[in-house]
């Protein structure tokens, strides 16, 4: 048998990290940027769970639970900030936010 090894998970997670990072850097829609950040956090979770299985150690899974909950809190605050921005500016495009040069 050739099971999926930790390395496979690491490659998947690195790919997600790359997609997320590129997404934040090149997309100008703030909501898509937010989603890209969530993607990176999920890459982290994959890493943590993979390592947790690798070491047969529960710490990684506990950490992943904390990451999930914190990510949700972060997303909620982010969406709240975006709604406030949208009410005042009526845009979610990062480069149309111009008072503070991006």
């Amino acid at each position: 048998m050739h099971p999926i090894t930790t390395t496979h998970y690491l490659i998947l997670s690195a790919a997600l990290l790359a997609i997320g990072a590129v997404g934040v850097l090149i997309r100008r829609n703030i909501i898509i940027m937010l989603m890209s950040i969530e993607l990176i956090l999920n890459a982290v979770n994959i890493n943590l769970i993979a390592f947790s299985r690798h070491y047969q150690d529960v710490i990684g899974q506990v950490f992943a639970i904390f990451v999930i909950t914190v990510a949700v809190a972060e997303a909620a605050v982010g969406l709240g900030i975006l709604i406030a921005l949208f009410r005042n500016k009526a845009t979610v495009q990062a480069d149309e936010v111009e008072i503070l040069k991006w």
Partner: protein
Amino acid sequence: MPTSVAEEYFPVVLQVLVAMAIAGGMIAASALLGHRVRNPVKDQPYECGIQPEGSPRERFSVKFYLVAMIFILLDIETVFLYPWAVVYRELRLFAFFEMLVFVVLILSGFFYIWKKGALAWSMEEKPREKQ
């Protein structure tokens, strides 16, 4: 017995290919064999006599986001209950009080959003928002 990764995952690849072939084949077949009638009634989103109302790109009220956000927040917090339930027997009273503190904190957040009117759907129920 399969001897390599490629061999082991061959059935999966095969299944993907078959699925794609069937889906593609059906679309191709309907394009080739079916004959097409174009008229305004046919082009409507619902071909059943009901007139569509408004634009499909309608904006939704911001209340949907608010309620969805609060729901997700409270929903995700319950994830802590699972590991807690697993070790509850070993930790006994300590775990009970820890969870009590946790639940009290969540409930005080809930009390806040409730009193602030974030859960009130119509404007009448909502306490007057401070300026």
